[in-house]
């Protein structure tokens, strides 16, 4: 399941501007073009920039912007009683940077609920090897099933094809189920890709049990939206009206 849609660039600029400011702190000559970060910041320093930006964004009310950007789409796909990942993530994929390669994986391998959806927001154009690849549902499920029985060695995942790499412009957003195999390869383009990602889950969808507290509501997720009618239902339960 993959869905690409257009979003409000002006609102998205909130995030872009914040990153530009952080890069300028490190190198005042930075011209503000995020896809050219690699000309201003060395590979050695990029993770520090990423961490500073991550900390800065997460200290602000980023959920408000995300609400404005994608509520409609997310409500359509998951319903309106939603939880959102507690922290929004930031990726910076500079050309030839081997340290940022994230091999093909499924989020459910690290105990994420398979019922969640991931909102992926590129802050630069994303294309070819600077982008993320997403394998198709059928292959992913087949592989996940096969690998779940393997105890000592992971089965080999087929190489992503050109068509598996997501091609998106700045101002577009992608929603996909991160249980599907996805990842990235060495960025062989001349452009850096900067993107944000954050996960959503319906309140009514199952989550891992206490064996994986890291992936539960309260720690991994926080409240995003609750319908008035759900709130009323909760009050009914809370007041012991239904025994």
């Amino acid at each position, binding site marked *: 399941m993959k869905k690409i849609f257009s979003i409000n660039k002006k609102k998205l600029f909130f995030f872009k501007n914040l990153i530009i400011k952080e890069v300028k702190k490190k190198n005042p000559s930075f011209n503000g073009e995020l896809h050219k970060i690699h000309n201003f910041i060395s590979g050695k320093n990029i993770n520090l920039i990423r961490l500073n930006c991550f900390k800065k964004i997460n200290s602000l009310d980023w959920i408000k912007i995300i609400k404005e950007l994608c509520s409609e789409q997310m409500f359509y796909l998951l319903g309106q009683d939603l939880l959102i990942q507690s922290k929004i993530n930031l990726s910076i994929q500079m050309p030839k940077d081997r340290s940022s390669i994230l091999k093909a994986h499924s989020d459910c391998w690290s105990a994420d609920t398979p019922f969640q959806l991931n909102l992926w927001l590129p802050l630069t154009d994303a294309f070819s090897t600077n982008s993320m690849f997403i394998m198709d549902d059928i292959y992913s499920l087949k592989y996940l099933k096969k690998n779940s029985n393997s105890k000592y060695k992971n089965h080999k995942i087929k190489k992503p094809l050109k068509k598996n790499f997501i091609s998106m412009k700045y101002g577009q957003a992608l929603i996909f189920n991160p249980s599907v195999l996805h990842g990235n390869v060495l960025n062989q383009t001349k452009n850096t890709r900067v993107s944000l990602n954050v996960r959503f889950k319906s309140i009514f*969808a199952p989550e891992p049990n206490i064996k994986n507290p890291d992936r539960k509501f*309260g720690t991994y997720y926080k409240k995003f939206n609750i319908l008035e009618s759900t709130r009323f239902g909760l009050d009914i339960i809370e007041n012991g009206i239904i025994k």
Partner: protein
Amino acid sequence: MSEKNIYTYVMPREFRGYNIPISIQSQYIKNYAETNGYKFMLPVTELINNQSYNNFIEFSKKNILNLAMTSIFVLPVNDIINCKKITKKFSDKCIFHFVLENLKFNKKDLLNWIFEFNKIDKLIYDYKSFNEIKILQTK
């Protein structure tokens, strides 16, 4: 009490499925204190006894302004009455910091968060209950 002193509290027993060594909890909170410009005060460890919050309550007598812990689930979050009891004597000015969840609350907002959490948490089931529902559907 200096506004920049952050007192720290660590839990030697399991909380919400976590059982984190004290030294790791301490280092984690210390890192939070340093990156946020607080003066880290050495951690107070709770008693191992089940349900004990004796050392947590001790903080309320010291009129402190900042108290940090690894997670909000160090507190008995599923028991709102107990939460009210153990936080009762804390000053309204005291800010509780929960590093894992990136949350910062005064007493009133902390209790509101716990109240809201318990309401929503009741609606969320895990895979085990999901399997039970599936079994019911196929019967």
